[in-house]
């Protein structure tokens, strides 16, 4: 099955991004496809490479980058939400890209399921 994933909350202050990551990783391990993850609202903060969490904690952004590198997941950050919050190309972590909301709608149209993580 093809899963599209929507992440609506930022890292650390909310569990949404962690749960979305674990869902995506597990789905891939079980043989499903996760072609794209879309980051919206404060979810765009997951894309910042400027985050430097303590060494003994997970690195939420870097974890997404690695999942993309290992499995070709397309990590898309909403341009309008990103501009509001100061997330620009210059601060993007590896394998994230900035694009429009059309990329979110496309997930709904093309994939078997669209799963939202957030409040």
């Amino acid at each position, binding site marked *: 099955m093809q899963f599209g994933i929507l992440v*609506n909350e930022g890292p650390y202050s909310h569990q949404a991004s962690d749960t979305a990551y674990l869902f995506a990783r597990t789905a891939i391990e079980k043989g499903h496809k996760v072609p794209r993850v879309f980051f919206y*609202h404060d979810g765009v903060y997951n894309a910042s490479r400027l985050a430097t969490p303590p060494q003994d904690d997970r690195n939420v952004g870097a974890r997404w980058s690695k999942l993309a590198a290992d499995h070709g997941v397309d990590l898309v950050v909403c341009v309008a939400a990103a501009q509001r919050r100061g997330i620009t190309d210059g601060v993007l972590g590896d394998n994230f890209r900035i694009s*429009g909301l*059309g990329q*979110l*709608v496309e997930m*709904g*149209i093309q994939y078997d399921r*669209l799963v939202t993580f957030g*409040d």
Partner: protein
Amino acid sequence: MSDMDDMDDGSGIIKKFMFLNRKAPHGTVYALEGLEVVLITAAFDQDVSLVFTDDGVFQLMKGIDTKGIEVKDFSKTYRALEGYDIEKLYVDQASMDARGLTEDDLIVDVTVLSVDEMANLMAEQDVVISF
């Protein structure tokens, strides 16, 4: 919205998208940014339904004035939805009752649904996005 021209993902597929608006218009950004997704989805010629439930019913309330909190008032956008061929607006009866609201308090025409009717409508959808 700047990018409201007709869009196409090339598949020709039309799915039923339901947007579930659950939060008050102000206090958080969900209602405002949620509306942006609604408009883009309509631009993709998808079958769009909007549901207002819980505090989301306040999004449609008449007389919203944001001057005192110095944030953008986007309530006019709801009245413009018809122009984007978004005509399926539903509100949850119990949420209205709990907040002392009736259809006369709202800025647009809506269909009021019971919990059971809402559940049936939801079950018909291909994609449900909640803001």
